[in-house]
């Protein structure tokens, strides 16, 4: 573990990613304290104001403070990220472990379902699910969660296949440990590394998907301050008030980028092929 932290710390880029994400997280958690204005408060006297000392990132067409809306927008991004990644993590990893451990017909059924889900472009699949379920933030989280299940499924299944013939699994079997306990106690902890990496990367995907779907009007409710909705509304005022679209776009990009470099850094730090094992 110490070794891992050292290796991770040495990776400056990934460390920067972690810091930025922590800042975003603080922003989301303490939004009411940090935001200078109420994000819903319209102000007819300050419509489409350019960035100034009063409104750091300017105001939108209703006079709402863009900085405050971005700060509140990080809440919905993280909420969607955590819940939808949670859904795909839980379902995907369970299915992957079951498929990899039992093999045979069960593996075939689960893997083919994953293949079918994989064959659709992810955003398209999320769009279809949203169209069926209807727009609401709950449905959005379900849709994004469902879409990323097969990624976790495949990673878990592959990792299980690589360790399920290990002697310590056979040893557990020879002791008489039942299959569920073998999967939870012996397999899961030993396949965590690639799953942790994928979870981090998936946060980025989920935030992107949330922004994209909200941009298309199939995401969260239209009055919620979300980076995607802000982008959508801002694009109409691009020529007169560039700050309306640029700042939400930048924050989304920064958050996604941070998750990606953090994920890459974690992968480098956790990858056993790069590690020179002393034992």
């Amino acid at each position, binding site marked *: 573990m110490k070794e891992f932290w050292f290796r991770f710390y040495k990776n400056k880029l990934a460390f920067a990613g972690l810091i930025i994400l922590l800042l975003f997280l603080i922003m989301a958690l303490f939004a009411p304290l940090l935001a200078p204005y109420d994000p819903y408060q319209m102000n007819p006297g300050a419509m489409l104001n350019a960035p100034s000392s009063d409104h750091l990132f300017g105001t939108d067409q209703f006079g709402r403070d863009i900085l405050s809306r971005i700060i509140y927008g990080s809440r919905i991004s993280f909420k969607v990220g955590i819940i939808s990644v949670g859904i795909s993590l839980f379902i995907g990893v369970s299915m992957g472990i079951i498929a990899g451990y039992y093999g045979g017909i069960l593996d075939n059924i689960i893997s083919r379902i994953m293949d079918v889900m994989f064959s659709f472009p992810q955003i398209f699949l999320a769009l279809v699910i949203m169209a069926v379920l209807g727009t609401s933030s709950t449905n959005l989280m379900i849709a994004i969660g469902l879409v990323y299940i097969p990624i976790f499924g495949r990673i878990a299944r592959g990792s299980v296949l690589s360790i399920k013939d290990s002697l310590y699994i*056979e040893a557990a079997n020879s002791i008489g440990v039942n299959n569920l306990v073998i999967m939870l106690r012996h397999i899961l902890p030993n396949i965590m590394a690639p799953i942790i990496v994928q979870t981090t990367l998936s946060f980025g995907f989920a935030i992107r998907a949330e922004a994209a779907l909200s941009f298309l009007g199939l995401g969260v409710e239209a009055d919620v301050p979300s980076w995607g909705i802000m982008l959508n509304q801002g694009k109409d005022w691009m020529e007169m008030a560039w700050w309306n679209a640029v700042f939400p776009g930048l924050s989304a990009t920064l958050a996604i980028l941070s998750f990606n470099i953090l994920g890459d850094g974690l992968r480098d730090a956790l990858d056993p092929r790069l590690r020179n094992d002393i*034992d």
Partner: protein
Amino acid sequence: MNDLKQKDEIQKGFYQHKEKLLKIKNLKKHFISQKGLFFGKEVRVKAVDGLNFDIYKGETLGIVGESGCGKSTTGRLLLRLIEATEGEIDFDGIDLMSLGERKLKKMRRRFQMVFQDPFASLNPRMKIKHIVAEPMKTHGLYKDKRKKKVEELLEAVGISRSYLNRYPHEFSGGQRQRIGIARALAADPQFIVADEPVAALDVSIQAQILNLMNDLQAEFGLTYLFIAHDLSVVQYISDRIGVMYLGKMVELAASDLIYDKPLHPYTQALLSAIPLPDPEVKTERERLTGEVPSPINPPAGCSFHTRCPHAFERCQTETPEFREVEENHFAACHLY
């Protein structure tokens, strides 16, 4: 000669008083794989091809043979870690082969395994106190005294209790094998299959582990099936030795008997290959020529006839029966 006779007497006593713990009849394991997509030929690897032997309570039965002869497969078959193709295993009056999944899991506390590779057989993410406690946890034993029992077990195998919270990678190969043995003992088993437990260790450590296993056998009244390819190791620890060749047992007798008077030509060749630590002694080696035939397509008749210096016509056509050639000395060879 007198010595031999005395040994014979001892052996006879041994066979009379001991009860049989395991009776193995016609045990077979064929690995079948299909070659080609649709109408491929069936490829049948006869890893274990008809074993008949008994294991007595409290003894150490050594199994030797070249790599690929089916020793490890035999060990795993006896514990039903892999399913046999055919045959019967009677464990202390219980028909192991007919047990359902749930009953088998419960039975598993009575027979355990010690693995060859101590680096791979311990879960790297578990502390050793949890590794050793796992069999008790699984079978619901020693509910309140589990911690104490773990300490006792580790002490019995020579691991200090101050290491309880460490992970496997913090130990040396010999120490890990000790932990593996402690785990195998945790559920108070009667029978332990040791699959080349010292093959991965240094020679100096090998002796320590073998002595430990001997001591534990006396202390807990264990029965061992000890698999190895190193003849000196097997001789050191075993009461009886079975020699395997291409999935079949070719000779089985008390360990002294087999070393003093090997019957099967394969056993003779194996024994003459043991190096003696004396440069003055010129050994007359019986060298075997050729390779071990593939178990996919074993030779007809006696599977050893392709390499046997004494082979004659009958060996090519007729499979020799594994029978009691002399008292308590089994062999499968047409010479006797």
